[in-house]
């Protein structure tokens, strides 16, 4: 236990003790001179002396000095730092100390990080030989940076090397680590020190891992009372190719958070690291706005884009979120080879190309061929092949289609009149089941779609309510299909017959629709659900995934790239490399830095894929919650509030507030001053009775 001060600067006031000393000394030498006409009579008055005056005045002097010193002490707000006292005293047996140090990017605000590092240093200062320390750095995940160890130098080095990252605050992982460490420990005293800015965004009130007694939690709040932050919360990129040139229109959302007034800021758009446009914007206080840049032509290949916002110098103390990175990729096109039955009339083959001709995410390039004139080049250029009411083309094209499917391509088969069991025999290994006879539902005016597996990825776009009315279409005919046990049935008609089934072949997908897309066997093509259904099936068959303009720090993503079969390397924005060998079946990457990640073949120079990564915007919201709320949530359920909070010294200011020692010191100072007045009066009266030295000199102290 040691005496600490909340406002140690007030101790400068101790200099005031010098005032009575100076007054004492000056008064001894300097006396007020009174001009008097004549000393004729005064000189005749006999003088007497005060011999005990000096001694008495010293007591008075000491009283005054003590009162002034206590006043200065009271203003310095003293308190007993029991925490550090415990640390240094080391009483009660060896300790297990877990220091949880928040390294989310909001800790880079102002001088938070230096304060947090200092707090971590303080937390481990004075650990004894038997004590053990673990330093856990956390943001959205927790990492043990040092320990458990009794070697202070190791922990100190880890604190020194630690830096705020780009992650967002999550308390649960850190507390889970703390819980494990304290639960495993056999030391009688277990202390968890949580150093954070206690952002509201970091804890939404959900259940947190609870510490078990005798573990205690000490929270150290390094947040700032008033904050200001200017940031780019997101970017929307829309494409415009109306005049034949692919242009991107970038609209950025800018926000200002915190307590300060609005500012004039500069928003810039950078394409491939070069500034192409700058705009002056007036950001409102605690508000957001949108700024749209002029359309920029999208170059070939993947383009890196960044929107930056720059506020007045010194205004924004958090720079991580001032830039938003994104990727401008060339428009994605899925090539579809539509193979029709030879001699099929145009009015039966027009629906699919039209349905696929609409849309740009992705765009579909449809090559319409008849089964007898399809070439291998056609198949090579396609990603998805649709066999519409026809069997597998004979010869090389058919083989190429099989290869395509096994290599990750897609095949959609619409079983029609001409896709009987004989025609289907050429693709038995591809079709999800055995093709049967035609089921004619025309006597009962057609059947309807009975059930759909809307959770299947192929029908994912219909997962939401009212996203597609499949019951309005009437199906007059369809073929029976008997799927194997490994095949997936996506939909059935109202009579239980299979309507849609899928089989995975190699890396590819084969979808079989037991009716047609031509309007003869059903009226599906004229139903509103036709277009999204067809596009959804083609996207699924092509294994198409939308390329996101940007990712968020903390997300893990698969980096499997069909184009890269060999060794793959990922280069982080800071230049670190991660390699995956050919044998690695799972290639995933956790994005921990902001900026652009590059994926490339080990031998290649150019990146095959660029991923833009931005910090989680919720971390930019710097509002804080009271640390004691979290402390209560973490405290053991059986413990009383007093036990829970009694051991938790929340912040230095709160510790001081609870003790209010300054009040007692101030009262003591006032009592001393009152005593000084009394003593001074008594001394004055005594002096009047008994004054002056025999030689006529007097003491006026």
């Amino acid at each position: 236990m040691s005496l600490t001060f909340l406002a140690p600067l007030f101790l400068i006031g101790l200099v005031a003790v010098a005032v009575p000393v100076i007054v004492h000394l000056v008064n001894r030498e300097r006396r007020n001179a009174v001009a008097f006409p004549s000393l004729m009579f005064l000189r005749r008055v006999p003088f007497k002396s005060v011999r005990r005056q000096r001694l008495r005045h010293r007591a008075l002097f000491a009283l005054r000095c003590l009162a002034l010193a206590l006043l200065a002490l009271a203003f310095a707000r003293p308190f007993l730092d029991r925490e550090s006292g415990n640390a240094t005293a080391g009483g009660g047996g060896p300790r297990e100390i877990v220091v949880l140090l928040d390294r989310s990017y909001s800790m880079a605000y102002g001088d938070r990080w230096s304060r947090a590092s200092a707090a971590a240093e303080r937390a481990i200062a004075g650990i004894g030989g038997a004590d053990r320390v673990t330093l856990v750095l956390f943001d959205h995940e927790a990492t043990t940076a040092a320990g458990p160890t009794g070697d202070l130098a190791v922990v100190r080095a880890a604190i020194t090397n630690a830096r705020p990252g780009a992650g967002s605050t999550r308390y649960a992982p850190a507390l889970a680590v703390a819980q494990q460490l304290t639960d495993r420990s056999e030391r009688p005293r277990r202390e968890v020190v949580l150093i954070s800015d206690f952002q509201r965004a970091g804890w939404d009130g959900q259940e947190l891992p609870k510490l078990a007694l005798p573990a205690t939690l000490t929270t150290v709040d390094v947040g700032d009372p008033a904050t200001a932050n200017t940031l780019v919360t997101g970017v929307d990129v829309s494409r415009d190719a109306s005049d034949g040139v692919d242009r991107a229109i970038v609209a950025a959302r800018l926000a200002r958070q915190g307590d300060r007034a609005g500012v004039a800021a500069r928003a810039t758009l950078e394409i491939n690291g070069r500034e192409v446009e700058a705009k002056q914007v007036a950001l409102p206080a605690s508000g957001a706005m949108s700024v749209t840049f002029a359309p920029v032509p999208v170059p070939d290949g993947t383009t890196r884009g960044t929107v930056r916002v720059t506020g007045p110098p010194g205004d924004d103390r958090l720079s991580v979120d001032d830039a938003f990175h994104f990727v401008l990729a060339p428009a994605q096109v899925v090539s579809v080879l539509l193979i029709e039955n030879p001699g099929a009339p145009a009015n039966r083959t027009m629906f699919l190309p039209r349905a696929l001709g609409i849309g740009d995410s992705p765009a579909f390039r449809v090559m319409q061929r008849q089964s007898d004139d399809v070439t291998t080049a056609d198949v090579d250029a396609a990603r998805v092949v649709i066999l519409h009411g026809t069997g597998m083309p004979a010869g090389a094209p058919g083989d190429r289609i099989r290869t395509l499917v096994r290599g990750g391509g897609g095949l959609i088969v619409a079983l029609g009149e001409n896709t009987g069991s004989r025609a289907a025999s050429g693709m038995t290994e591809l079709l999800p089941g055995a093709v049967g006879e035609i089921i004619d539902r025309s006597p009962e005016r057609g059947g309807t779609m009975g059930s759909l597996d809307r959770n299947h990825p192929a029908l994912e776009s219909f997962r939401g309510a009212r996203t597609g009315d499949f019951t309005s279409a009437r199906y007059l005919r369809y073929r029976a299909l008997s799927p194997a046990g490994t095949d997936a049935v996506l939909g059935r008609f109202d009579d239980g017959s299979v309507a849609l089934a899928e089989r995975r072949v190699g890396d590819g997908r084969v979808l079989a629709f037991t009716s047609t897309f031509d309007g003869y066997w059903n009226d599906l093509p004229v139903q509103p659900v036709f277009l999204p259904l067809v596009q959804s099936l083609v996207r699924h068959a092509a294994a198409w995934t939308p390329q996101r303009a940007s990712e968020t720090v903390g997300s893990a993503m698969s980096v499997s790239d069909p184009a890269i079969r060999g060794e793959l390397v990922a280069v982080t924005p800071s230049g670190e490399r991660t390699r995956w060998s050919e044998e690695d079946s799972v290639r995933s990457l956790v994005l921990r830095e902001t900026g652009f990640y590059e994926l490339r073949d080990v031998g290649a120079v150019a990146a095959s894929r660029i991923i833009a990564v931005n910090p989680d915007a919720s971390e930019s919201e710097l509002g804080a919650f009271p640390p004691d709320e979290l402390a209560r949530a973490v405290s053991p359920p059986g413990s009383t509030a007093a036990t829970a909070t009694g051991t938790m010294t929340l912040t230095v200011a709160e510790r001081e507030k609870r003790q209010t020692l300054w009040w007692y010191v101030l009262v003591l100072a006032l009592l001393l001053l009152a005593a000084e007045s009394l003593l001074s009066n008594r001394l004055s009266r005594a002096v009047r009775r008994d004054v002056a030295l025999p030689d006529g000199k007097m003491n006026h102290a």
Partner: protein
Amino acid sequence: MFAGRPNDTGAGTSFIDPRVLAKIDNLELLARTVVEGFINGLHRSPNLGASMDFAEHRAYMPGDDLRRIDWRLFGRSDRYFVKEFEADTNTDLLLLLDVSASMDFGSNGITKLQYAKYLVSCLGYFSSRQRDRLGLVTFVDGIVNYVPPSARHLRIVLQTIARATASGQGSIDTALRQIAEFARRRQVIVIVSDLYDEPERVVRAVARLRNRGNDLIVLQVLDPAELDLPFDEASNFEDMETGESIPVVPGLLREQYRTLVQEHTATLARMMREERIDYALFNTAQPLDHALFAYLADRQRLSRIR
């Protein structure tokens, strides 16, 4: 002997605070203000009216001698007029004003020198009205300024008084010795000083003039602080004339100091009286006109005015 106090005022009469007088720069105006306030009706000069040379009529004022009313004029005008006569006088009035540094002391807004200046101005103006010849000597340890007596010297006297400043270490003995050398003619001599000297030496010096046939009036001017020593804080007291200083705790010395001062003034008064020298103590806290009024009335009562 008169040693008036500020509250010792005549009923129904209002007196002028010395601090108010201090705001009047013109000494003649000041003297007139003070003198005119009480001279009519109170003071009956033996000279005024003793002559048979008619000077003028003036309106009767309460207090005027009824015998001096011009009844004939009353018969004609039905109003009371008093006849004034040109006074014959051959008396000189020599004002001796101490301008030593100690006179520059004042604790209540007016210094002793200022008060003394008003006093001699008033007396000068007063005697000038009586057609006396008026002269002035300012002195410290010797003569500083000398204006020889003349019936037309009022203005010069007042100007000299106005210009006088206090400085130097005074010695009334030396100064009066010099004055005695040229003041051979019998005259009324008024000495205004704080008389910081041994009573014996003061009286001896004054008596020297007295012995030459002069009518001596000694007016001692003292500040209330000099009489009471009202200071509280222990301080160094510095002599205004010598610069010498001694540490003093006034609270402890006050009673003894007062006793000494009272003994001093009493001794002066007693010795002056024995030498038939007119003596009065003026406290600068007193209204000047009241002090003059009281003093002159007293003097008249004792029939010592020439």
